[in-house]
Each structure stands twice: as C-alpha cells, then as structure tokens.
C-alpha cells in the first residue's frame, strides 16, 4: 500500500486554516448535540451555503467535525438530563443518568469522552487500512441479513432492563406497533394514521425519545419533589478514577470493535452497535444487576461503540457513494456542491479529499477529547442548579427543540403525549428503553423481511440458507436459549456450589471500595 497520499493527507489537515475549521466544526457540533431536536443534519443544512466559499477539503473537515462533535454533545444531554438526541445514544441513558443521579456525572461524561476517543480512533485506523475490504462486507448484507440483525436486536432489548421481563417485552412490542404507523412502504396503505397527513410518514424518533425519557422524568420529579425535599445531586468528582477506568477498559476495547463492524452497515448500524455492546457487557458481567443502576461499563460500551460506528459509517459514503444516514446524505450534498462525486473513484480521483477527510478525523477526535476535559467540569455544574430551576428550562429546551425537527407544532404535542405515556409507564413499572429501541428496530425487521420474501419469491427458507443471515439467526437462537443453556451447563457440575459457569474469568473481580 502506497502511504504517501496518507501522509499528504496529514499535511493538508495540519494546515492552520484546516485545523481551525476542524475546531469550529467540533465546537458547533457539540453545542448542537446538546440541543435536542436540532440535530447535526439540520445544522449542516444551515451551514451548507457557507461551504461554497471555502475549499472542498476544509468544508468537509468542518462538516465531519460537526457530525462527530454532535455525537458527543448528545451524550452530555443523555447523561445529565436523560435526553438522548439520537437513537444511538438511547442505551447510554440507562447507566449514564443513573451515574449522574449518584453524583458521578463527571465519571460518566469522562468515560464517555475517553471511550468515544478510543472508539473513534480505532475506527479511523480501520477506515485507513481496511476501507475497501469492509465496504465489500457491507454489500454482502442484503435485506435478509438486516432482518436477522433486527430480530437479534429486539432479542437483546429484552435482556437490557432490570425490571419485570414480561412488562419489558410488552413495552418493546408496543414500540414495534408504534413503528408501523404511517404509509406502508410496500403497498402505500395507510396504517393507523386516522386520515392525518401528519402521521402519513410515521412518527419521528425525536419526539418519542424526548417524551418518554426527558419529559416523563421531569413530570415524575414534579410529584417526587413534593413528597420529599430532593437535594440536588451531589457532584462527587469531575473525572473518572483509576478504578473506573480499569473497570471500563474491556468494555471500551470490545465496544470499539463492535462499533466499527456494525457501523459499516448503512442504516441502523450505529444504534444496533450501541445496543449490542451494552447487552454483551451486561451478559459477561459478574453482577449483571449493577447495569441500569450506574455501571461504568454501561456507559463505556455504548458510547465507544456509537462513536466507532459514526466513524465507520463514512466508509460506505467515501468508497461506494452510499450515504448511510441523513447526515451523510448532507455531507454527500456538500461534496457535490464542491464538484466532487463521492463514490468508488473518489480515492483515485481526489485522494486529497479522501485522505484529508479521514485524517481530519484523527485530529478531530483529539480536539474533542482535549475540549471535553474542561467541558465536563462545566457541564457537571449544571447539576448543581436546583431541580426547581433546571426543570422548566429543560422543559422549554425539549418543547422548542421538538418544534425544530419539522417546524411543526404538532411535534410539540407528540412530545407532550409521549411524556405523559412515559410518566404513566414509570408509575406503573414499565421501562421506556425497550419501547424506544424496538421502535427504532421495528421498520428494519418488517421492511427487510418483506423485501427478502420478494427476493426469495416467497420462500422463507432463504433466510436460513444464506450464510450470513443463517449465522445471525443461529446466534439469535443461542441468545434466546441462553438462559436454558447456561442453566444446563450449571447443573452438570452439581457438587460445586455456585461455581462460575461457561464464562471464564477473564477479568479480575472488580473491587468496590467504600468511599
């Protein structure tokens, strides 16, 4: 492999003007990510005209900076306010917000920053060395494979919660049902739209997530606060301790790998990767019950994975000309404006752009890490504000943020509706996580399996005979039957009381010390 274009790419990125564009992008992205609703897509759209004036490399460096800056910004609101800005940070909410309530928001944000940095960097290394190979891998994933992955995802959802399993599965099924609202992709039939044009394109993720997580929490606390004087969460530390880091180490490593691989898949890769990384950590943990109550790995795994996935989602764009998500579609548009067609010929026709973008990510990730260190301290101070004051401000951010998604008051009503639903669910012992995640994965399962059946000419055995979908479905079986399998394995060495089964002790047991 000829590495001179790669080195030239570094030369381009390290030009002071490009460093500044990278910095601007990362800062803008971070701020945007903090505001729910106004995602990186909308911001890039607003900034597109500005990119006319600056060179293609600088423009893309800045836009890419916005993209991964926003990823980290979304983490901040997930942890502090229980407001996930994107589907891929829903999983972070579980342990991130729990840590914040325990006064360890700094730990959560710090771990997320470090995890994001490592995940991102591992993924860029992969992008640099393996882009063409993994791009081919992405193409091997057709509708049957996505359908199988979706099923695996929903199965993992049922294992992530701590509450009643039956209730979790019901919530997940309701999420799947909500996802069917709108015009059917295959027949154009209106499903559960009740004649409303607003519902014809289905319900957006943002109002659901903001309502069920953010707003429901505020409504719930309104009542709580009345019951007892609720002191603001103590802010214990602003940076993860050595012990936290040790605990998160393995999760970060595995999260990087899972994120890189799944992120290459256009459509849903990032969400699946955060879910898979979390479920994997929970399953291999000595005390799975710590998850959801503030386990450091529960933040490290999904945050590392979603950042790694965000980075590797550039692979389909840069090597195949396929935008993996809405934000990528805009970056595609920005490249077009500059006279550059992303696609298989990009690396040979415009090596400066190709390598400039990739190398800017190394720099962008370093900038993001450097910036987040002082920022964590600042953001954590938000929690020192009395809940009575923080609540209305968060409500306003949520409602006005919902408006900005489609510039429709209708979406504000949706957030309120889902806020009420989330509040009632919380009161009645249902967790919102399974509902939201199943909502995201539902269309993937339905559309992909219907596409598959059309491709197979109606023969469902095709799902099992194709190598990748067959393997994934076998994995589904293993995961589904795992409780039975592990029980059987555990029963055999009966004389040994409570011997640790199947799971080999890779990590030394973690010591929890009383502070």
């Amino acid at each position, binding site marked *: 492999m000829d590495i001179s274009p790669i080195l030239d790419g570094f030369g381009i990125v390290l030009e002071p003007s490009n460093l500044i564009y990278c910095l601007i992008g990362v800062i803008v992205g971070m701020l945007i990510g903090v505001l729910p609703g106004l995602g990186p897509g909308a911001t890039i759209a607003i900034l597109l005209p500005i990119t006319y004036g600056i060179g293609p490399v600088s423009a893309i460096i800045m836009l890419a900076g916005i993209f991964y800056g926003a990823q980290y910004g979304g983490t901040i609101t997930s942890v502090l306010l229980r407001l996930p800005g994107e589907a891929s940070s829903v999983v972070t909410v579980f342990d991130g917000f729990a840590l914040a309530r325990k006064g360890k928001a700094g730990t959560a944000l710090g771990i997320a920053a470090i995890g994001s940095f490592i995940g991102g960097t591992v993924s860029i290394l992969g992008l640099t060395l393996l882009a063409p190979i993994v791009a081919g891998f992405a*193409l091997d994933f057709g509708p049957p494979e996505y359908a199988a992955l979706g099923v695996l995802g929903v199965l993992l959802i049922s294992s992530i919660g701590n509450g009643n399993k039956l209730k979790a599965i019901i919530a997940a099924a309701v999420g799947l049902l909500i996802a069917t609202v709108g015009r059917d992709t*295959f027949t154009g039939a209106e499903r559960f739209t009740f004649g409303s044009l607003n519902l014809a394109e289905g319900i957006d993720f943002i109002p659901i997530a903001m309502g069920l997580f953010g707003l429901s929490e505020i409504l719930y606390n309104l009542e709580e606060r009345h019951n007892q004087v609720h002191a603001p969460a103590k802010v214990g530390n602003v940076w993860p301790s050595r012990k936290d880091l040790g605990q998160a180490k393995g999760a970060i490593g595995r999260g990087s790998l899972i994120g890189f691989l799944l992120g290459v898949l256009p459509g849903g890769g990032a969400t699946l990767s955060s879910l898979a990384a979390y479920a994997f950590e929970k399953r291999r943990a000595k005390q799975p019950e710590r998850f959801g109550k503030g386990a450091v790995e529960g933040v490290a795994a999904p945050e590392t994975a979603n950042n790694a996935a965000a980075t590797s989602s550039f692979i389909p764009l840069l090597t195949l000309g396929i935008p993996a998500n809405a934000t990528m579609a805009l970056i595609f548009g920005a490249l077009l*404006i500059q006279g550059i067609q992303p696609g*298989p010929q990009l690396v040979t026709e415009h090596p400066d752009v190709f390598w400039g973008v990739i190398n800017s990510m190394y720099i962008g990730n370093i900038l993001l890490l450097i910036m987040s260190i002082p920022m964590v301290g600042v953001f954590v101070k938000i929690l020192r504000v009395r809940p009575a004051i923080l609540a209305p401000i968060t409500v306003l951010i949520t409602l006005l943020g919902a408006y900005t998604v*489609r510039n429709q008051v209708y979406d504000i009503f949706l957030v309120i509706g889902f806020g009420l639903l989330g509040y009632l669910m919380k009161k009645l012992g249902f967790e919102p996580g399974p509902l939201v995640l199943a909502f995201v994965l539902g269309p993937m399962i339905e559309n992909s399996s219907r596409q598959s059946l059309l491709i197979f000419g109606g023969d469902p055995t095709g799902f099992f005979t194709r190598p990748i979908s067959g393997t994934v479905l076998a994995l589904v079986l293993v995961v589904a039957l795992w409780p039975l399998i592990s029980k059987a394995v555990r029963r055999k060495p009966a004389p040994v009381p409570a011997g640790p089964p199947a799971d080999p002790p890779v990590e030394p047991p973690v010591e929890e010390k009383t502070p």
Partner: protein
Amino acid sequence: MPTSRTTPRRVLMGVVGAAAALALTACGGVKTTSSGGGEGKYPTGNIEFSVGASAGGSTDLITRALAQGMSKELGVSTPVLNKPGANGALNAKELQSAKADGYKIAVQNASLFTITPLTVSPEEATKIDSFDVITGISRDDYVMATNSQSGFTSIGDMKKSGKTIRYGTTGVGTGAQLASALTFKSAGIDATAVPFDGGAPALTALLGNQVDVSTMQIGEAIENIKAGKLVPLAVFSDKRIDYLPDVKTAKEQGFDVLVTQYRFLTAPKGTPEDVKARLLDAAKKTFATDEYKKFNEQNSLTPMEVSPQEVLTALQQDTAKYKKQLDEFGISLAG
C-alpha cells in the same frame, strides 16, 4: 398548599388571557421567517422557501441552490424550511392555505401531482389548481441499471434470459417504480418489484447483487456507472441524457415508457401578478449564473426553465398518460 391551589390557576388564566389578547391586538400576527408585508415595493422582507422533504435530498438541495441565488437578486434573505411528510403533501397543504403574498413559496415535485394521485384516495391527492406556478426548474431523470456481473446490457437481454427479474425501486408511488413496472409489463418480462426506502438502499442492494436491476435517479447512480460497477440499461426520457450520452432511451429500445421527475417553483393560488413577475425575474437571473449551472451539472439535473403554462401542460399530459398506461397493462402501483 391546599389553599393556594385555586389561586395560581385563576391568576394564570387571567395572565394568559390578557397576554394573548394584548399580543393579538397589538401585533395582529406572528412572525416566523417570512417577515414581509409592509409598505413599499415587493419584496420588503424575508421570503420563506419550504421544502416537503428532509434536508439532503434532491428537492432540498435544489431549493437551497435556488433560494441562495434569488436572495442575491431580490436583496432579501430567503430562509429554507424543511417540512417533510407524506411525500411533500403535508408541505403542499400548508402552502396552499398560506397568504398569497409571495412571502411563502416552494419548489414542488411533479410526481406529487402526476403519480401520487394514482396511489392515494382522490380527496387526499394534491391538486395543482391550488397553486400558481412561477417557473419550471429542472428535470431529474431516471436510469435503470444492473450490476456489471449480471451480463445484461439492454432491456432485451433481460427478456432473453427468461428468468424472473427482481427489481429494486425507490418506493411505492415513485417515478422509479412506475417506469420499471411499465417497462417490464410492455416488454413482457416476468418481474417482481422490491421497494426500498429511497435511492441509497436501492443502490446498495444493487451493488450487493441482492436485486437484478434497480431504477434510480441519475445523480444517485452515475458515479458507480462511471466506475464500471453498474451497467445502465435504459433512461426514460424522450431524448438521450447529456450526462449519459451512450445510454439508449426505453423508447429507442422499442418501449413506450416516458417517465421523468421535474420540479417547479410554486406560490399559493392568487398571488399578485407583479409579485410573480418579480419572482420569475429573480429565478431567471439565478438560472443564468455559472454557479447555478454548475450545480445542475454536478447533480445530473437537466434544466427545464420553462413557462408556467408549459409546466401545467406537462403535468396534465403525464397524469393522463400514466393513468392510461396503468389501466392498459392492469398495473396497480399499490403493491
């Protein structure tokens, strides 16, 4: 706090009521981004361009390119607002009930008026009579392509192979679906449609050999065609497309399939003539700039900067033709 429970609510109601009344009488309306309507010659304030699709799609990019140029010509700012929903019908409905003063306008797709009505109930269909067309903008043509490994080079090759063709489309009720369905029916090829949610997944499935052919907008496929990964089989325009000069039209190959997507600038019905003339003038000047021409080329768009009358005629003819052909072949676009 039982005693205070009624008081705050009463206070709140009073305050809200008073504030609302005050605000409504004092200002007589609410601003969003269109801030015109004052004294003086049009335009005196911002002109809002709404888009019935998400940021990043072709309609969005075209609107932004046009809005930027027209902003320079008119000397006011032209914010672009995305209002996605129901293939653009949601935005169309809002636009048709907006004030016809030229401060809210939109680029709209032909398919919303020619193809969508074939898939939804009559009362749901958007009608062009509700709008004033200001000018045509550009054509965005479709290309049917196959993976280079399939060995096909024309529509005839698919027929010769004798196998059932599985074709990807960009969704139900799109021109891509209509063009492919008509082609396969009129050629007598046994084929199954596999609808995807937009061009990117249809392209992915084709590159991965999950489907035999896909019909997409040219801009989506052109790079992979140039790279030799995809082989174009046909375009569906009247004449060959400048961007793909070697690709035969379906008509040349003996199939009467003419399907194009085109876009035009619209305002609510009843917009004053002088306002429309001013907008048309600004649009024309924008079309003439090098920057805009370059934009068209990069996105593989063919200029269709025609008069409103020509747009209306094209819409009518297309609607009638599509309906007739679908009936003739007994095709239902819905599934």
